[in-house]
C-alpha cells in the first residue's frame, strides 16, 4: 500500500506535466477537444491520486517522504527532488488539485474559441505542476522551484493576451515584484543552509533548537519577504490587482485559490522557525492585518468587478497572515481552504458574468443581471455571503476563528483591525453584488441583447464550489478550534489551544463577527439598493479620500516615482558613465598612444633627423664654399699641389728642428 502511495505521490505532479508536454509538442496537430481533455483529465487524475494519498495518510497518520531523484549534489550539499506528504501537504494537495480540476473544467467553457486555447491549457497544466511541486517538496529548493514555477506560469497567464499592452506590463510587473520576494526567500534558504547544513524540512526542523533568536528572526524575516511577494502583502501587493489582466479562470486559480496562498503555506510550513522569533511573528501579524485593512479600503470604491475581487483577495490573504502572525496556523490554513472555495467561486461567477456580457468588467455598466443569469447570480451570492462572514457559510468559520484567536491571545489591536476589515469586506462585497445584479440595467443595448447564461460546463464547477462554500466551513472547522481540520493538521502545526477559553467568549465573538458582517451588508443594502444616490453624495463629500482610494492610495505612482524611475534614470547615468568614463579611459589610452606617437615622431623629425641633417647640411654648406677651389683649371690644381708641398716642407722642417 505504501509503495502504491509513493507511486501516487510521484504521479501527482507528473500527470499534468505529461499533459502539458503532450499539448506543447503535439497541440497543433490535434483538435482543441483533445487538448482540453488531456488537460483537465490529467488534473482530475492527479486529484484522484491526491485523494488516495489523503486516504492513506488519514488511515496511517504517517508522513510520506519520496525521493524522485538526486538533483543537485556535490560537497556537503545534496538536494533531492523529493516529496514530503504530510497532513498539511495533503490539505494543500486536495485544494490545489480539487479546485484546479474544477477550474480546468470551467475553462473549457470559458476559453472556448480563444485563439490560444491549447496554449492556455499548457500554461495551466504547467502551473499545476509547479504548484504541486511547491506544496509537495520536501526541501526548500524544491519549494523554490515550485515557487518560481508558479511565478512563471502566472507571468505567462497574465500575459496570455500578450498583444494588450496592459497585459504585457502587468505580467512583467508580477514577475519582477515576485522576484523581489524570491530574492528574500533565496537569502532565507542560504541562511538555513549555513546554519543547518541541510535544506530538508525534516532535518532542519529537527535541529531548529540550536538556532539563536537573532538568527531565527533573520531567517523568518527573509522567508517573510518571499511570502509577502508571492502572497501580495504590503508592500509588494501591487502586482496582484494588475494581474487581473489575465483570463478569469487564471485569476480564480492562481490569483485567488492557490498560488497567492503559497506564502501562507510557506509560513505555516516553517512555523517552527517563526515560533522562535516573536519579533518576526509581530511583523507577520501586522503586515497581515495592515494588508487586510488597506486592501479592503481600496476595494470599497473600485469599479472593475475583478479588481474588487482582487483587492478582496489581498485583504483575505492579510487575514491569513494575521492568523499566522498570531500563531493560529490551523486557522490560517482553514481560511486558506475556505477562501479557495469561495474566492474561486466568486471569480468564476464573475467570469461567468463577464462571459455573459461579452467581456464587460465595469460594474457601473452592469446591474439587474439577477434575472438574466440566475444561476450565476445565486452562486455569486453564496460566495458573497461566505466571504462576508455570515454563518453558517464557510468564510464565517475560518475568519472568525482567526479573529477570535487574536482576541483571546490579547492581540486587541489586531482584532480591531480585523474587525474593521471584516466590516469593510462585507460592505464592498455586497456593494459589488448589488451593483452587478440588482437595480436597473446600465448595460448598453448591444451587450444587453447578447446576455446569456453560461453553459453547463461552466456552471457545473460553480455549483460544486458553491456547495463547498456553503458547507465547507461546517464540515472542516466545526466546532471552532477543535474541528476535523485541526485534528488532522495537529501533527504538523501542533495543537493551537494551549489555554482554553470559555464557550461564552467564543459565542460572543461569533455574534460580534456576525453582526459586523450584517451591518456591512445593511449599509451596502442601504447605499446601493435603498438610497442609491447616497454613494455619490458621500463620494463627493469625501472626494479627497474617495479619489485616494480610487487611485489605490497612489501606491503604484509612488513606487514608480521612488523606485522604478530612479532606477531607470540611474541606468541612464550608468550608461553615460560606461560610455564616457570607462570607455573613455580606454579610448584615452588609445589617445595617449596617439599623442605619444605624435610626440615621438616630432622628436624623430625635429631632433634626431634634423640633428643629423644639420651635420649633413653643415657639410653641404662648407662644401659649397670649398668646391670653388675645384675650379677645373689644371694650373689651379698645380698651384694647390705646390702650396701643399711647401706646407709639407715647412712642417717637415718644423719637426726636424724639434
Amino acid at each position: 500500500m505504501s509503495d502504491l502511495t509513493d507511486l501516487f505521490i510521484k504521479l501527482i505532479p507528473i500527470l499534468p506535466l505529461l499533459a502539458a508536454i503532450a499539448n506543447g509538442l503535439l497541440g497543433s496537430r490535434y483538435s482543441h477537444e483533445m487538448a482540453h481533455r488531456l488537460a483537465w483529465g490529467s488534473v482530475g487524475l492527479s486529484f484522484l491520486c491526491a485523494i488516495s494519498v489523503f486516504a492513506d495518510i488519514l488511515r496511517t497518520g504517517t508522513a510520506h517522504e519520496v525521493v524522485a531523484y538526486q538533483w543537485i549534489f556535490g560537497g556537503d550539499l545534496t538536494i533531492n527532488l523529493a516529496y514530503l506528504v504530510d497532513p498539511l501537504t495533503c490539505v494543500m494537495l486536495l485544494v490545489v488539485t480539487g479546485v484546479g480540476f474544477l477550474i480546468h473544467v470551467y475553462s473549457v467553457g470559458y476559453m472556448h474559441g480563444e485563439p490560444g486555447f491549447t496554449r492556455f491549457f499548457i500554461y495551466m497544466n504547467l502551473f499545476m505542476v509547479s504548484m504541486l511541486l511547491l506544496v509537495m517538496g520536501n526541501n526548500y529548493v524544491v519549494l523554490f522551484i515550485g515557487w518560481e514555477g508558479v511565478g512563471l506560469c502566472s507571468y505567462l497567464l497574465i500575459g496570455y493576451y500578450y498583444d494588450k499592452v496592459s497585459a504585457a506590463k502587468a505580467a512583467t510587473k508580477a514577475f519582477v515584484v515576485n522576484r523581489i520576494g524570491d530574492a528574500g526567500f533565496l537569502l532565507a534558504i542560504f541562511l538555513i543552509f549555513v546554519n543547518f547544513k541541510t535544506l530538508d524540512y525534516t532535518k532542519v526542523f529537527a535541529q531548529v533548537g540550536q538556532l539563536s533568536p537573532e538568527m531565527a528572526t533573520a531567517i523568518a524575516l527573509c522567508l517573510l519577504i518571499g511570502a509577502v511577494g508571492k502572497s501580495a502583502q504590503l508592500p509588494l501587493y501591487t502586482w496582484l490587482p494588475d494581474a487581473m489582466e489575465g483570463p478569469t479562470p487564471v485569476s480564480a486559480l492562481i490569483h485567488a485559490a492557490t498560488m497567492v496562498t503559497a506564502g501562507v503555506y510557506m509560513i505555516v510550513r516553517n512555523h517552527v522557525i517563526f515560533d522562535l522569533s516573536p519579533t518576526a511573528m509581530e511583523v507577520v501579524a501586522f503586515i497581515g492585518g495592515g494588508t487586510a485593512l488597506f486592501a479592503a479600503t481600496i476595494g470599497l470604491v473600485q469599479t472593475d468587478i475583478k479588481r474588487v475581487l482582487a483587492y478582496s483577495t489581498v485583504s483575505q490573504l492579510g487575514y491569513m497572515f494575521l492568523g499566522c502572525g498570531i500563531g493560529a496556523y490551523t486557522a490560517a490554513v482553514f481560511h486558506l481552504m475556505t477562501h479557495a472555495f469561495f474566492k474561486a467561486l466568486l471569480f468564476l461567477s464573475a467570469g461567468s458574468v463577464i462571459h455573459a456580457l461579452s467581456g464587460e468588467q465595469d460594474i457601473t455598466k452592469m446591474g439587474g443581471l439577477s434575472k438574466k443569469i440566475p444561476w450565476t447570480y445565486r452562486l455569486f451570492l453564496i460566495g458573497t455571503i461566505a466571504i462576508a462572514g455570515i454563518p453558517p457559510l464557510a468564510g464565517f468559520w475560518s475568519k472568525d476563528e482567526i479573529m477570535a484567536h487574536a482576541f483571546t491571545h490579547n492581540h486587541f489591536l489586531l482584532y480591531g483591525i480585523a474587525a474593521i476589515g471584516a466590516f469593510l469586506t462585507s460592505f464592498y462585497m455586497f456593494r459589488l453584488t448589488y451593483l452587478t445584479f440588482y437595480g436597473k440595467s446600465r448595460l448598453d443595448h448591444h451587450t444587453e441583447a447578447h446576455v446569456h447564461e453560461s453553459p453547463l460546463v461552466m456552471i457545473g464547477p460553480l455549483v460544486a464550489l458553491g456547495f463547498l462554500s456553503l458547507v465547507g466551513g461546517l464540515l472542516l472547522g466545526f466546532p471552532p478550534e477543535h474541528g476535523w481540520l485541526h485534528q488532522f493538521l495537529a501533527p504538523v502545526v501542533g495543537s493551537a489551544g494551549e489555554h482554553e477559553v470559555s464557550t461564552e467568549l467564543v459565542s460572543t465573538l461569533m455574534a460580534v463577527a456576525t453582526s459586523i458582517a450584517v451591518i456591512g451588508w445593511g449599509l451596502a443594502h442601504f447605499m446601493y439598493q435603498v438610497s442609491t444616490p447616497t454613494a455619490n453624495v458621500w463620494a463627493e463629500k469625501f472626494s479627497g479620500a474617495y479619489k485616494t482610494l480610487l487611485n489605490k492610495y497612489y501606491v503604484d505612482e509612488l513606487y514608480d516615482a521612488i523606485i522604478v524611475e530612479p532606477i531607470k534614470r540611474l541606468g541612464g547615468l550608468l550608461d553615460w558613465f560606461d560610455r564616457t568614463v570607462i570607455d573613455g579611459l580606454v579610448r584615452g589610452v588609445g589617445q595617449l598612444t596617439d599623442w605619444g606617437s605624435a610626440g615621438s615622431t616630432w622628436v624623430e623629425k625635429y631632433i634626431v633627423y634634423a640633428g643629423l641633417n644639420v651635420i649633413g647640411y653643415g657639410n653641404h654648406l662648407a662644401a659649397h664654399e670649398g668646391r670653388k677651389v675645384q675650379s677645373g683649371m689644371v694650373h689651379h690644381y698645380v698651384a694647390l699641389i705646390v702650396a701643399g708641398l711647401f706646407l709639407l716642407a715647412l712642417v717637415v722642417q718644423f719637426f726636424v728642428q724639434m
Partner: protein
Amino acid sequence: MLEELTAGFPVLTCILFLPVLGAIVLWLFEDEDMVRTSALTITLLELALSVFVLLRFVPESAAMQFTERVRWIPALGISYHLGVDGISVLFVGLTAFLSVLVVIYSWDTIRHQVKLYMMCLLALETTTMGVFVSLDLILFFVFWELMLIPSYFLIKLWGGGAERHYAALKFVLYTLLGSVFMLVGIALLNINFHQWASLHHTDQSYSFDLLELLSAPIPMDQQILIFWLMFMGFAFKAPIFPFHTWLPDALMEGPIGMAVVLAGLKLGTFGFMRFSLPLLPDASQSDMVVTVVVVLGLCAILYGAWMALVQPDFRRLLAYSSISHLGFIVVGLFSLNYQGLQGSLLTMINLGFSTAGLFFIAGFLYSRQQSTQLSAFGGMAKQVPLLATFFLIIGLASIGLPGTNGFVGEFLILLGAFKAKWWFGAVAVLGVIFGAAYFLWYYERAMLGPVGKAVKQTMSDLQLREMVIAVSLSAMILWIGLYPSPFLRIMNGSVQALVDRLNHGTVAALGSSTTEKGR
C-alpha cells in the same frame, strides 16, 4: 571492444586538430554549398569526438584523463601536454556543440566569403579547444593568443556594424594587453619552479607544465604578484568589470557567430579556475585578493544588470547581461568553497547555452529586421510565436529560473558566496532581481504588446535550421536544469580536489618551512 580499440588513441589531439585540418580541406573547395556542408560535417565529427570523450570520461575523479604528453621544448620545460579533467571536459563538449550550431546558423546568414568565414570559424574552434585541453601553460598561451587572429577577422570582415574595425582592434588589443601580462606571470611561475627545482636538485629544471608547477611551493609575495599578472590576462578576457568595454563593442559589431563564441565560452573565468586558483591557492585566499575580486564581481553583477536595463539594443543588452553573469561567476569562484566553485563551473557551461542561445535569438531577430534595436521590434510574438517562445525559454534560463540550467548554477554560486561571507550573497542576490527586470522588460517591449510599426508584415517564423538551433539549445537548458547530475558528477571530483588544494595551500601541503602560509 571499443575500449580496446580506443586505448592509446590520441583523441584529444584529434579533437584539437580536426577543425584546423578541416579548414585546410575547405580551402580546396570552391563551391559554397560544398564548403558549408563540409564545415558542418567537420564540426559534427568534432562533436562526435567530444561526446565520445564525455562518455568515456570517468566521473567523480580528479585525475587528468586522456592525457597526452610529448616533449616539445625540453630545455625550457615546455611540453605538448593535453588532458581533461572535470573542469575542462565539459567545455570541450560545449565548444564542439556551439560550433555545430554556429555553422548551422551561418549557413544562410553569411553570404560573402563563405569559405574564409568557415575557415576562420574552424580555426577559432581549434584554438578554443586548445585553451581548454592544454595542460602546459605555454601551450595554453599559444592557443589563447592564436584565438585572437580568427576572432579579429571574424569581427572585422563579417561584422554588421559600422564600427567593426574599431571593435575588432579594440578587442584584440585589449585582450593582448591582458595576455602579455599573463605571459609575464607564466614566466614568473616558471622561474619560481626553476628556483625550487634547483634547490631540490630535481631532474626537471624548468617547467611550464601545470601538473609539475603544482608541486612547487611559491612564496606568498610572489604568489600575489603572479596572481595579479594572471588576473590581468583572465580579467581582460573574461571580461570582468571594469575591463569590459571591449565586449559590448565586439558583440555589437561582430557577427552573431563570433558573438556566440565570445559570450558563450567563458575563457577568462575558466582560466581562473584552471590556473589561478590551483597554482596560487594562498594568494587566491588572501583577504585583499578575495575582497578586491569579489567586490569587482559584485559590481559587475549590479552594474551589468543595471546597464542592461536601459539598453535599447538587444545585443548590447546581452553584452551587459554577460558582464553581469560573469560577475556571478567571479563571485562564485572567489567564494572558494565547494558550492561556489561548482556553481561557477556549471554557470560557465550554462551560459554557453543560454547567453549563446540569446545571441542566436538576436541573430534570428537580426535576420528578420536587419537590426536588434528595440525600435525595430514590438509585438513580434504575434507573428513569430515560436521564436518568441524560444526567446522566452532561453531568456528565462539566462535569468536563472528554476527548472532551467541557469538556476542550478546561480543557486550554487549564491549559496557558495553566502557561505563565504553573507554579504557577498546578499548583494549578489540583487542581481537576480535585476536579471528578471531587464530581460522581461525588454521581452515585453520587443515581443509583447501590439505589433510594432517597424515590424515587417511578412515575417516568417523559425526556419528548419533555426529550429534545430533553438530546440537543441532548449533541450540542453532543460536537461541541465532538471537533471544536472551527469554534469555535476563529471565535475565533482575535480572541484573537490580544487577545494582540498585551496584548503591546504601549496606551501603547507608540501611541508616546506621556508615561507609562511598566506593566511
